[in-house]
């Protein structure tokens, strides 16, 4: 464990050396990974590291530094380095720490750390990965190969202190089990994956369930083809819908909003989505991946409704972007070890609807069910959306055949106004979550 007091010492040293304000982050992490492939162990990785970051203010000038050397000489260099580089920056009238009244930390157990994963030894961890891969390889004779399976575990601690009297720390743990089988039939070869990710080992899904699901996902892609270019309804499964919610995050990130680099800039209070759309950011839900007691500026986290029944109600802000917009921080400051804070999300999700995914699909005469999106063709400045896709073609309410090597395109503005259906299947598999959702019409480009 890190000595939290070190963070306060770094802050004090920076003030002694002439900084008018300072914030220090300490981070420590241990990672473990066991990888297997074709039923035998392939890689084992086990290591840990630490680091310290410092951000200082000289009046309205800002400088930052980091180091992996936490010795007293390393800390002295850390402080000198931040002060040296602050001297060459420009005065920024909006720079500064949060107001002391904004600082604080959620109380109560947020269930971010569990040591149950430490109670299973390396050989058991390897065994879990072997079982997950075996379940995939045994699922069907067409599963002929594998990219392997892995069991990963992480535990770490984060400490934050600033010169306005904040000192806080929290520990996190997580573990995950995943496998990526390869299916083959004739000339067609496809891979897909499935995984489970949890803060406690006890919440991890069974290796057999993960392997079977991964195999199903790879198998259903076999023999995929292109379809002619056309406009149809598009259903996003939970994983791909999640990426759409991440795109919306970029557009409500205070940093892009104050620069007018977002299609949602200047739209607060306006209708930006259909009435069934409510998007919430909540970092206070115990045990989830986007949960923390305070943000990376020492401000308590909270629940923020971003879009309320189609109306844009809040951006996500840190202290700086709040000041730029004449608003207050929403407790969404994020940063690595050092530097000016950016904006991050906590648990960001689309509220669930009424219908099951099966019901949604049954209601579609002709359309696309998307299970994979590739590429980075989303422009949150203009809203232009164009991504590579793979999935299942829907005919008369049923999956007809797999499709790939196609793109789907529209604009985020039109898509948000056209959430034709939202599923009831909300699940948190990461810090962004969405139920299945259907967009009324998009351009599918193929042949």
């Amino acid at each position, binding site marked *: 464990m890190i000595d939290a007091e070190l963070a306060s010492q770094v802050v004090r040293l920076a003030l002694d050396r002439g900084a008018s304000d300072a914030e220090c982050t300490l981070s420590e992490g241990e990672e473990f990974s066991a990888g297997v*492939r074709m039923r035998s*162990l392939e*890689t*084992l*990785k086990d*290591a840990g*590291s*630490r*680091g310290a*970051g410092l951000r200082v203010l000289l009046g309205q000038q*800002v*400088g*930052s530094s*980091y*180091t*992996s*050397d936490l010795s007293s000489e390393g800390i002295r*260099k850390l402080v000198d380095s931040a002060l*040296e*580089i602050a001297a060459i*920056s*420009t005065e*920024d009238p909006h720079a500064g720490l949060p107001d002391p009244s904004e600082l604080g930390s959620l109380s109560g157990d947020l269930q971010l750390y569990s040591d149950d994963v430490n109670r299973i030894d390396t050989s058991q961890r390897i065994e879990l990965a072997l079982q997950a891969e075996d379940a995939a390889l045994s699922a069907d004779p067409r599963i002929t*190969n*594998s*990219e392997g399976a892995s069991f990963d575990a992480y535990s770490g601690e984060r400490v934050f202190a600033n010169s306005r009297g904040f000192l806080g720390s929290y520990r996190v743990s997580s573990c995950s089990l995943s496998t990526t089988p*390869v299916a083959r039939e004739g000339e067609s*070869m*496809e*891979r897909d994956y499935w995984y489970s990710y949890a803060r406690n080992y006890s919440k991890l899904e069974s290796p057999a369930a993960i392997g079977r699901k991964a195999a199903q996902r790879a198998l259903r*892609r076999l023999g*995929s083809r*292109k379809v002619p*270019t056309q*406009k149809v309804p598009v259903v996003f499964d939970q994983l791909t819908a999640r990426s759409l919610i991440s795109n919306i995050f970029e557009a409500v990130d205070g940093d892009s909003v104050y*620069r007018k*680099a977002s299609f949602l800039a200047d739209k607060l209070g306006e209708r930006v989505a259909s009435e069934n759309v409510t998007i919430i950011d909540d970092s206070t839900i115990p045990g989830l991946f986007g949960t923390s007691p305070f943000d990376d500026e020492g401000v308590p986290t909270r629940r923020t409704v971003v879009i309320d029944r189609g109306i844009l109600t809040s951006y996500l802000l840190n202290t700086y972007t709040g000041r730029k917009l004449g608003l207050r921080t929403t407790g969404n400051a994020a940063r690595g*070890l*050092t*530097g000016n804070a950016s904006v991050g999300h906590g648990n960001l999700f689309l509220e669930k609807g009424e219908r099951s995914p099966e019901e949604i699909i049954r209601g579609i005469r002709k359309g696309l069910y998307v299970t994979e999106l*590739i*590429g*980075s*063709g989303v422009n949150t*400045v*203009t*809203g*232009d959306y*164009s*991504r590579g896709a*793979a999935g299942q073609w829907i005919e008369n309410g049923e999956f007809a055949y797999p499709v*790939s*090597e*196609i*793109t789907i*395109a*529209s604009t985020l503005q039109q898509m948000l106004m056209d959430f034709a259906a939202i599923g009831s299947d909300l699940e948190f598999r990461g810090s962004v979550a969405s139920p299945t959702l259907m967009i009324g019409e998009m*351009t599918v*480009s*193929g042949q």
Partner: protein
Amino acid sequence: MALSESFFGQKFGITEHDLQSYLNEALSAGGDYADLYFEYLATSSLSIDESIVKSAVQGVSLGVGVRVIAGERTGYAYSDDLSPEKIRRAARVAACIAKGPAKVDKTGFEEANKRDLYPILQAPNETSLTERVDLVKRADRAARAYDSRIFQVQASYADSLRQVLVANTDGVLSFDRQPMARMNVGVLARQGNGSPQRGFAGGGGRVALDFFQNEHSPEEFARESARQAIVQLDAVPAPAGEMTVVLGPGWPGILLHEAVGHGLEADFNRKKVSAFSDRIGQQVASPLCTVIDDGTIRNRRGSLNVDDEGAPTQKNILIEKGVLRGYLFDKLSSRLLRSGATGNGRRESYQHIPMPRMTNTFMLAGDSDPGDIVRSTPRGLYCANFGGGQVDITSGNFVFSASESYLIEDGRITRPVRGATLIGNGPEALKYVSMVGNDLKLDEGVGICGKEGQSVPVGVGIPTIKVDRMTVGGTSG
């Protein structure tokens, strides 16, 4: 250079005896091979935003990674503390992968033969901070001066100096000092009440600061970024469907990186999970296409004197006149496939296990005049610039996103179109290349390649090429 004169010898007093004892510890439970990767990385970065130098960061990280290979198995551990007891502990953890009697190697070390591809006396981060601040200020002024419709400018400059020492149980010892510098300029332009449009340009490489003062000035990147944003103000919706696509020279070489490069990395082919597995000697592209991966080009972003496993980099032919010739190897893959090294073992840092990765990947020039290529195209899309790309190496499907493209109508480049994703299939796409220009150009030096969570700098390049058939993912039918 002797170890005692090297960075790690001088600064940390590391001796050959130390290295030998760590490697012995690594093979204490058996195993076929072990290596040590010492890394000391110093970075600095600056950015200007709203004409204010808002962010400036400098820092150092240090550590050593220990790897043990036993057959197909790899054990890995690292330490951010270079004290002998911590390194030995990491070596013992990595050794857990092997099960057998200890192997004691006592062969001594021989220094790897090495090029000097970035002979820089003074790395950028060894110069004064004010000189570097001046670069971003100049970029900010130039972008704003380009056109009154430019209303946001963010310019950044980042550099790093990485000191590396690799020692392995084959007796190889190698040192390298790897500088890197890069500038980026991003702008937003707006016309009336229309939607803002982005522009982006940047460049750099393993260069000294004078690269930005003499060869490629901040003004050049700023004007290019501003030009792209202004062009987009008049863009019409991109077309949808299959059509002829002409790629301009330079950065559009990302096509090669996604369509073939990743699929030729030997780890995927050893496991036979790539769409290119078992296809050496087969026609995978039109006979006009020869694709090279070359880690030895002076001062380039993707170049290295030695790869991150201590092997000298090389110029490797991947596709020759359309025929698949070779894969890209790291140490593990070349051991298992009994193939020679290609110098493509790379890693993000001491915390990461090396993998086969690309360096600078490009297509050789052909005979066609770039103007003729456009004139020969009655209807199609001309792509001048791209954002990122991605590939599914198993199905071979890849995408790349055009950020600056134009309609080709009656053999002429006409209206700019909005951003669109292009999609194709790796082993098929290059078969439709019907013309290759005589204007090979390498990119400006901004490429970052991600694979299995590890990012490394890379380069790409391509002459103007015509692809007769590719799917364009716009909205306009």
